[in-house]
């Protein structure tokens, strides 16, 4: 009899080594933090029900769900645009799970639990933009990609959802990256290669920024 473990484990469990990476002897220019144990629900409007979903989402989250590439901070959740008439609900601590959202939203929308299907990586630091510029064709300039801006795009031929969160207390920008779990290890190595020259500080956390 094979023993199975149903304890959730990060797809980056083996690839992520906390501590310093790349150039040493300088202050790390890039911080890479994997955020673990989040709840992520994909919400997609049923055909012709976009307006009805918008109403239900507003009642549930207290904010208007994004209808353009943006991330909106709602009650205990971040709503991230992922395509026309669809968005992610990102939260932690079981506040918005599939079980709690289905009764509220399943009339106008299809819901799918992506909590264990994506890896969430938070990227910041003085060289975060320089490092991302090697991988992304999105204009991430401070005046072009504002707080709350989001993009469904590709990095290194891998589909990702990218958005800018609130700045760190020291004023530096924070970029959040959702990537498919099975592509996460590959993209993680690409991120490390891209950031190595600037010095990298690697960590993981259970705190949603």
């Amino acid at each position, binding site marked *: 009899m094979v023993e199975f473990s149903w304890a959730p484990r990060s797809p980056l469990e083996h690839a992520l080594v906390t501590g310093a990476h790349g150039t040493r002897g300088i202050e790390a220019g890039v911080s890479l933090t994997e955020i673990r144990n989040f709840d992520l629900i994909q919400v997609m*409007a049923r*055909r*012709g*029900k*976009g*307006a009805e979903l918008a109403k239900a989402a507003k009642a549930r989250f207290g904010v208007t769900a994004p*209808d*353009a*590439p943006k991330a909106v901070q709602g009650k205990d959740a971040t709503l991230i645009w*992922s*395509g*026309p*008439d669809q968005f992610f609900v990102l939260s932690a601590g079981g506040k918005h799970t599939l079980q709690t959202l289905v009764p509220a939203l399943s009339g106008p929308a299809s819901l799918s639990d992506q909590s264990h299907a994506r890896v969430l990586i938070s990227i910041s630091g003085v060289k975060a933009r320089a490092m991302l510029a090697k991988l992304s*064709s999105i204009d991430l300039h401070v005046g072009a990609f504002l707080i709350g801006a989001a*993009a*469904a*795009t*590709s990095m290194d*031929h891998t*589909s990702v959802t990218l958005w800018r969160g609130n700045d760190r207390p020291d004023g530096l920008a924070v970029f959040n990256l959702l990537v498919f779990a099975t592509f996460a290890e590959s993209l993680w190595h690409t991120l490390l290669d891209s950031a190595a020259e600037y010095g990298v500080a690697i960590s993981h956390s259970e705190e949603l920024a």
Partner: protein
Amino acid sequence: MRIVCPFCGERELGEFTYLGDAKPVRPEAGASEDEVFDYVYLRDNVAGETNEYWYHGGGCRAWLKVTRNTLTHEISSVEPAAGAGAAKVGA
């Protein structure tokens, strides 16, 4: 070449996949063999403006109808294909 996705904005070609000619329309049930053959196999080789389906698979995963000039690669219009983004095309 870049395509301005009506949902995402201007993006590089690598995020898109080409499907093909958007002109052929599926014949009615009971159409003649020639009509079906034409629909399945025969394509015009246009030197000039064409309508094409493109898929934004590396982005918002919407299907798009692109009007492109095959001589200059100039793209004159990009719109959501029917069914993509119910709110925008009202389908």
